[in-house]
């Protein structure tokens, strides 16, 4: 399969061109920044956590199509999730991208599968995991507070 079909799937292009969950929360519980040192891509994840759930999430920043789309899909996936569920999803997504792990996502999260191809392009793995690493750190910080 050509890279352009494997990596630049329609869903990734769409999310990168109109990312969702942009903007800022009025009272975030935690804000975490992620930076890809090698290319300068940067992301900021804001969470409003209440009753053990991510009630609201905002993802801002600038980066390539893979990192922007990944942040957008992530925000759609985890908003409303229980914290433990979100942590599990982070592990599953990263396992898929980093190790090529076989993960089946429920139908409502099938956009995440568009990133499967990234595993074949090691230089782009950091792009796809940038927002997820920031979310992971945000959750760890929230748990520590």
């Amino acid at each position, binding site marked *: 399969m*050509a*890279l*352009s079909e494997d*990596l*630049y799937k329609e869903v990734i*292009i769409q999310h990168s*061109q109109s990312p969702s969950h942009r903007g800022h929360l009025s009272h975030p519980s935690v804000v975490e920044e992620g930076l890809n040192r*090698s*290319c*300068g*891509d940067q992301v900021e994840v804001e969470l409003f956590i209440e009753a053990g759930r991510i009630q609201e999430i905002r993802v801002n920043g*600038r*980066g*390539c*199509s*893979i990192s*922007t789309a990944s942040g957008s899909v992530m925000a759609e996936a985890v908003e409303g999730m229980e914290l433990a569920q979100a942590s599990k999803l982070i592990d599953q997504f990263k396992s898929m991208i980093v190790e090529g792990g076989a993960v089946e996502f429920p139908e409502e999260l099938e956009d995440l599968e568009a990133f499967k191809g990234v595993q074949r*392009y090691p*230089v*782009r793995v950091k*792009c796809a995991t940038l927002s997820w690493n920031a979310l992971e750190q945000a959750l760890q910080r929230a748990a520590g507070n």
Partner: protein
Amino acid sequence: MGSLLDYRAIREDFPILSTRMNGRPLVFLDSAASSQKPQRVIDAFNDYYRCRNANIHRGAYRLSYEATDLYETTRRRVAHLLNAPHPESCVFTRNATESINLVARSWGEANLEEGDEILVSELEHHSNLVPWFMVAQRCGARIRHIPLTADYQLDLSRLDEVINARTRIIAVQHMSNALGVIHDLKRIGARARSAGALFLIDGAQGASHLRVDVQDLDCDFYALSAHKMLGPTGVGVLYGKRELMEAMPPFLGGGDMILTVWKDGFKPAPLPNKFEAGTPNIAGVVAFAIALDYLEKVGLERIHQHEAALLSYAVEELSRVPGLTLYGTSDLSVRGGVVSFNVDGVHAHDVGTILDEEGIAIRAGHHCCEPLMRLLDIPGTARASFYMYNGPEDVDALVRALHKVRDIFRSAVKS
């Protein structure tokens, strides 16, 4: 495009250029990051380890004498290339970055005081910024910048605004790795002289493409990296005026940089050993001489003219690609073989990945020039850089691949 160089014959000397990448012939357009190496340089490196390997300056046996002789031959070749009057004031480092760090640490810490000023430019590579930040922090000095014109050149009409009686050193690149601009070094150097400041040139992008004459430039220091000049990685050079280098304290301490060591102190060796502590990259230095022979055989003037012709062709062809923004001065007479661009609505890394699929190697990102990217208000650029082994067909391949980038991101690109 007419060419002064038989680049097709030159390509035959570089084995990597006939390899395939992602199933396609490799189109290498990233020589500003590191040049490819001709077979004879690779052979020299291997031959050294196979037949001539011994430590230098130490062994009382023939093999060591010979290794020392080869190593010192490269020093004389470097001095010849730079027209440096004294070979011993050309010292080997790991790269241009280490050369600049050497000056910042050795000269800077010994001479800079609170309130002194270090002048750099808004185009500098991190390697000619961070060492100065570090020494400025230690000494209480201040960093100032030569601003850019709207056409991406250094605005030398504003030199007087940024130079004053506290300016101690002006540290400027020879040519911008991000935009390819070649600077008017003689004018900057003359201003440094009149201000009583030293003048350092970061020649990482200069010495591989342009004839360098350190006496004509009247610079105090010139830093370069062998790996951008057909040579091995891990070898750099710092040229410095002999009286300055002699007055500077050692940078790194250890074996070979000493004259005498007592129980409680040491006396440093004379140049060049004072700045070459420990066992250096002997094989790399030895092979670098072969790279310099190759460069001189092809001729730096001809290399520059070939790249200028390629640049002109590339700018013309790329200007026809819809939705492409080109960065860099419109005055091509002061530009080296670097084209920096962005495709509207597409991040440079996505451009780089799609080009890679076509076998085309370019650089994408901030090019270790984050302050410049902030000034331009962009996260980075895609950059194609040329060398003696590139031809117009490489530009054609680039243009074809950029149309593919546009197709994939079609809806985002404004035609």
